């Protein structure tokens, strides 16, 4: 299986930039179209309009004086940065993809968009990628419901991973092998904790530096 269309979630956070980069490389490797998706959380959008809403600074442990303006500006800034990142990374490449902005519930919008793609790539902030139960709510929902292979680029938590050469014929290995293209050697980690639907990826292939500790999830056949 070779992905012809890749969807990457972009929100301008450092990990989403890493996801964008990984998606670009995968796109180059497979000649796939890469589309970017920014989901504007409907609740945040409403919050920006709700005069009764309250915004509290985590840094200062204090209420912001003008929360509506601040949230509005922050959301606008986020979408602008996401678009710039997408264009900086994928602008001008062929085949050209598109950058989409959707408003709604993040998970449901992602799932809708994912239906049009062969592979979904996103960054996620979880600390223990082998433990699906500890994933964030969005990541967990996507991991459970995404109809397409899902590559989640995690953050390294300082743990030294034991390396092994991939062997076997589970669906996850099959998709991982496909993602590796001609390079059959995928160095994977924590095989004992890897199930047929998810693998911990340390390196997708030579020259592709997906963040070690990433999780590749493959829906059950």
């Amino acid at each position, binding site marked *: 299986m070779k992905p012809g269309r890749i969807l990457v979630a972009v929100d301008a956070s450092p990990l989403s930039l890493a996801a964008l980069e990984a998606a670009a490389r995968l796109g180059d490797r497979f000649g796939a179209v890469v589309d970017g998706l920014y989901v504007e959380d409907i609740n945040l959008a*409403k919050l920006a309009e709700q005069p009764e809403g309250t915004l509290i600074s985590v840094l200062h442990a204090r209420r912001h004086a003008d929360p509506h303006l601040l949230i509005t500006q922050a959301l606008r800034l986020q979408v602008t940065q996401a678009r710039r990142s997408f264009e900086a990374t994928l602008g001008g490449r062929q085949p050209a993809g598109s950058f989409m902005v959707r408003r709604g519930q993040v998970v449901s919008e992602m799932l809708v968009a994912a239906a049009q793609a062969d592979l979904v790539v996103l960054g996620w902030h979880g600390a223990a990628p082998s433990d699906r139960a500890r994933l964030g709510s969005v990541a967990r929902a996507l991991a459970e419901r995404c109809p397409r292979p899902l590559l989640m680029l995690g953050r390294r938590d300082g743990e030294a991973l034991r390396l092994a050469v991939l062997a076997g014929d589970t669906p996850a290995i099959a998709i991982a092998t496909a993602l590796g293209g001609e390079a059959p050697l995928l160095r994977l980690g924590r095989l004992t904790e890897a199930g047929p639907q998810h693998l911990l990826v340390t390196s997708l292939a030579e020259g592709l530096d997906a963040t070690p500790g990433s999780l590749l999830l493959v829906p059950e056949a």
Partner: protein
Amino acid sequence: MEDLAPQEPPPLAAAALYRRCDPALLPFASTAELTPLDEPLGQERAVAAIHFAIGMPSAGFNLFALGPEGTGKVSLIRSYLERAAATQPAADDWVYVFNFEDPHRPRTLRLPAGRGAELRRTMEHLVDDLRLAVPAAFEAEEYRTRRQLLEEGFKEQQENVFRTVQQRAAGRSIALMRTPVGLALAPTRNGEVLSPDDFKAMPEGQQAAFKADMEELQKELETRLAELPQAARDARRKTRELDRETALAAVRHSIDEMKRLWADLPAVLAYLEAVQTDVVDNLGDFLDHDHGHEAEAGDEPEGLRLGRAEKRPLRRYRVNVLVSVGTGTGLGAPVIHVDHPTQPNLVGRIEHLAQQGALITDFNLIKPGALHLANGGYLVAEARKLLLNPFAWEDLKRALQAREIRIESPGQSLGLFPTVTLEPEPIPLDVKVVLIGDPMLYYLLAAHDPEFTELFKVSADFDWRMDRTAEHELGLARLVAGLGQREGLRPLDAAAVARLVEHASRLAEDGDKLSTHLASLADLVREANYWAGEDTAPVVTSRHLQQAIDQHDFRQNRVRQNVLEEITRGTLLIDTDGEAVGQVNGLVVMELGRFSFGRPSRITCRVNLGRGDVVDIEREVELGGPIHSKGVMILSSFLSARFAQDWPLNLSAHLVFEQSYGEVEGDSASSAELYCLLSALAELPIRQGFAVTGSVNQYGQVQAIGGVNEKIEGFFDVCRARGLTGRQGVLIPAANVKHLMLRHDVVEAAAQGRFSIHAVATIDQGIALLTGLPAGEVDGRSAYPAGSVNRRVAARLAQFSRKTRAFHDEGPHRGHNHG
């Protein structure tokens, strides 16, 4: 003082011209029979001073060895110092280590001899150990688990705040959401934030309840969030404590082992304690993988190593061994001879390396100077070189006064370069300094540098000559025997040694003395050995020695030959026969490096009516030195005192060295000038077969001069080239007779009556010899006898006086009109 009676002195006997050394009186047939002399010869005073300086422990009793070069000062001092040093304990080792409290002031550690290198080695092993032990401790599962627990604990605390408030909010249909700019609370319905219109559509009571709930939740959130920074700080502190605890456990074992090794040295223990604290405080240095190359750094050039200095903080745990047994000193107290005593070579230096346009340094780049190496022993340096090198003399004095070595660059001393650099802790100094120099330097320093005499209280005054006693003659032979053994030279037979003794007298310019210029004598023996080798002779004979002297002379005498040639060809006007008024052969010595020779120089004098001036033409054209001018002024005094008691001197006399185009210095020609002046005044011719040397005082006494042998030989060579007539000779001061060690051909000619040397004590003796007339002694009526030289001089001066008086009485115009 009464003028002395004139007596025409007879020629000196040949035996007076040269003091022979009789080989038959030497108590050996060949130097092969002799025990080499390992004591210095003829330097008893200097040796006593050296012994005293070595034994005197008080400060300031450093030694200055003064004497001409070639007298064996350096080798003698070295041999005495090395002998003394061998019986003294080895000097301590000194190392520089990092100062953890003040990195710009590296600290010193004083260690027993030989342990400096051991400390460096054990510290290197310690760092190697720690580089493995520290990362291993931090990679251990126990550490990782404990750290994760701490981190997770804090995250859990954060989540709890969010979750608790979120749950409470959810119960009241209020959403707590994370936004890019903080946490937001908003009223919801069915999980979605209410729009403003929906909110307004609610009953007022419900709206008020929402607002009150949100207010309450907001306060709770603020309160809980405010507690998080403290929790974060607590978490970080606990993490740091865990790190320290882990590091200490990893470090302590290795450091304790080091401490056991250095238990006898409290200073090292304190240093190790500081190292332990620093390692624990700077764990990152041991956990950075870049440091993995440190292990191979030992073979790298310092420049390359320091080029990566920023990545190599472990350099601060190195030990810079500044001085250690084996650094160049060996066992016993060190004896260091500094050949090139620049300021850095003396007091040490801090080297710098250019890195990305900046000069950087650290304590590992501190280099020792000669004072460091000599600390606890002896330092030998040549005074002249020391004084020629900027700052070296001042820094040496400063170190001796302060009794510590402070490493400062010249720029630092002057405050020229206020860049950040190191100020290494000074090292206490206990050294005996021996300076070697010529006497003039010693006297100048003593006169002009008040600190000099405070710091160099002992002088070893090397004599350039010694008495020619049987003991010293034998000592010279034993020195030759030692030289022969050391250098594999042929032995000298007794006649050769005798010739060497005579040559040593000639070098000393005194038949009663021997030169202590052992370098020249040793070279002569080596050259004689060469000529004996050319002869395939088993021993060096007097012929070989003479050949060596002649060949040495020949190699250097080109200028002398040229001068002689120009005289014999008539280019340089010198008469060696006949008579002339107001003209005499003076004698000068020309020095060309270490070769000197004598040559005659014509001196003439013209007199006329004048104001009593004796004009030295050399002085007028600034070719005469002050001593020469002094000699000429003495002539005026002599003339006035002897002949102008009753009337003023009314003469003008002009004296000149003919065909002299260089500077004339010295007063050895003043007697010749006086003879010339008397001849011109008396209008009596001087025998040109004579040449004259000697200075004269105001009473007409002839005084000793230098270079008497060369001067006589110079005139002899000219006379011989033209043919010896038997009427030729040289007038020398009587006081110089003891200095005569003339060439064999001169002595031989004198013995045959073909050339004569006359010793004169007074001007009257000399003028009688030169003119053939008695000088004349003043009688009871203050008159000189008729026909004497002095009578004629007095008459001529009286005539000048009368003419002057007449001139003034009659006026110049009349004289002119009738002239």
